[in-house]
């Protein structure tokens, strides 16, 4: 059975999207290999074209680049960064993130929505990073987003799926891939995200802060695959109380009155 992740008409065998900003650039290839990663983000602001330590130079061939608009504080800034990414030859994918809160780094849903609308019209494959709000997610769909990327917990916190109940709403209601972005700190949390029906998981800090970065990339790969398989298999039942012998609510059927 071929189980592929489709985003904006492109398909991927891997459901592990790697964030790349937090580990040494020379680890990039190993992490990508161990994680079976096919798509990795790059911060456009870190692209140092023809310069030293240019993140793009460290990306192995064949990987799909997902440039992000990190650093943008408004829709206009995000749009400008996206256009620069295209100029740099990073392709049409763009992860929109607009953050105007430097303490908690919370995404600004309103500005993100505006940027998504503009960029989708310009032919970008837009993957907006957002706080999981159902109404905004619906608006992102109608604005032409190709996926929706809700945060699981504050970025870099490794706290896991704190927003699980809200992400589940998006999974139920939104007919686009829901990709948990931010907050996933352990393979078990990535697995849980996949079990509940997320289409993919994005992680960076969890791997970058591990003692053994290369091994943690492998662990994430396995966890994401395992969670996906569990989702496809359909979770089994959980017995939370004993069965009841009588039929208090259906006993009336067939009573002849």
């Amino acid at each position: 059975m071929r189980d592929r992740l489709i985003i904006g008409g492109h398909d991927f065998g891997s459901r592990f999207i790697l964030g790349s900003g937090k580990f040494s650039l020379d680890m990039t290839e190993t992490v990508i290999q161990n994680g079976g990663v096919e798509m990795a983000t790059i911060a456009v602001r870190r692209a140092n074209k023809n310069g030293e330590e240019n993140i793009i130079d460290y990306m192995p061939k064949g990987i799909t680049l997902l440039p992000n608009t990190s650093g943008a504080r408004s829709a206009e800034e995000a749009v400008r960064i996206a256009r620069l990414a295209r100029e740099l030859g990073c392709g049409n994918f763009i992860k929109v993130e607009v953050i105007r809160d430097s303490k908690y780094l919370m995404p600004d849903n309103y500005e993100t929505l505006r940027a998504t609308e503009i960029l989708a019209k310009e032919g970008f494959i837009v993957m907006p990073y957002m706080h999981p709000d159902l109404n905004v997610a619906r608006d992102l769909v109608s604005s032409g987003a190709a996926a929706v990327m809700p945060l699981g917990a504050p970025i870099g916190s490794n706290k896991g799926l704190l927003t699980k109940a809200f992400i589940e709403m998006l999974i139920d209601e939104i007919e686009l891939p829901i990709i948990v972005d931010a907050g996933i700190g352990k393979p078990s949390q990535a697995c849980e995200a996949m079990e509940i029906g997320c289409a993919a998981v994005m992680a960076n800090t969890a791997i970058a802060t591990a003692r053994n970065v290369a091994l943690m990339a492998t662990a994430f790969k396995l966890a994401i695959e395992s969670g996906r398989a569990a989702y496809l298999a359909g979770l089994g039942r959980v017995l939370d109380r004993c069965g009841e012998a009588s039929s208090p609510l259906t006993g009336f059927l067939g009573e002849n009155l």
Partner: protein
Amino acid sequence: MMKTNPMTYLANMEQIESDVFEKVLSRVSSYDYTQYKDCDVKCALLKDTLNPDDFAALLSPAAKPYLEEMAQKSKALTHKHFGNSIQLFTPLYISNYCENNCIYCGFNCKNKIKRGKLSLEEINTELKTISETGLKEILILTGESRQKSDIQYIGEAIKLAKTYFSTIGIEIYPLNSEEYSYLNNCGADFVSVYQETYNLVKYESVHLSGPKRVFPYRFHAQERALMGHMYGVSFGALLGLDDFRKDAFATGMHAYFVQRKYPSAEISFSLPRIRPYINHEEKEINDVDEGALFQVMLAYRLFMPYASITISTREKAHFRDHTLGVCATKMSAGVVVGVGGHVAEIKGDEQFEISDPRSVAEIHSMILQKGLQPVYTNHITSKGLVGWGVW
């Protein structure tokens, strides 16, 4: 007489852009309820949010042994979403003239029944009398005759109703969105249109003539109502007309896709099933016994826990009472299904026979005895603020 194509719109029927029709019909055409097994039902019962496939499993024969489990879960969900509230309303038939020839219906234009239409004065008297029972929600019904009960007439009836009731629903022939908007401005907020069956071949064979024969125009009525700013819409199939599992599945899918497209719409279900009616004895129907009907109600509740479910007076008191709080959240009381009849003699015959003639006071005390709460008002209209006068 040449039969018309039921897919062809008549002149003046509005056609809207919508993919809901294709989505629902394609789901239904691939629904094979015999393929579901025990484990599919158990799996569906485990979930917090059901997808269409889980809903399909709960409507299948495989779910029959799990009725008690379904009922337990349904009761918990009903309580979670509605507390112990049971909403009360009553219908008022203002006209039974009809231009449709639907072979299962008592209002069938070929039936030699007593036809009648209330004057505005008579409507006012009926409304006043009904309001004296304490009810605050009314459902205004007509047969399908744009000639005998035109939009202006219905609009005037709604305006009158607004002076006594806080919530007004209409169960009339399907309209264009502008007409819905007009009636919304008159004070109606809720629209019921029942597709009867979602099987086009069957639909064609039982709707022999009249505007109702146009299948897609009826299908899109809820969407047009929402485009006309109505607050909520109701869905239902006449269970027993065709394969009831398929029709119940289609009804759920219809509501599901409309809800997804109009997330703010209030969704309700009704579950009429075929009962005996005048001039036409029951014949060749797919039997929907009480167990089957209960299964469908429970499946609706588990699939759309937030939807209102109305239990019909076509059902016996015993059955109605047991569904309350388990899945049903709304019921009619003090029901007369002839035209008029709350004050004077009825002016026109009824569409069907009712099985629960209890008065508002009787229903009220039954609900209290069950530990539930009768609710009379649950809605503030945005339009026609005259209605505030009754608060």
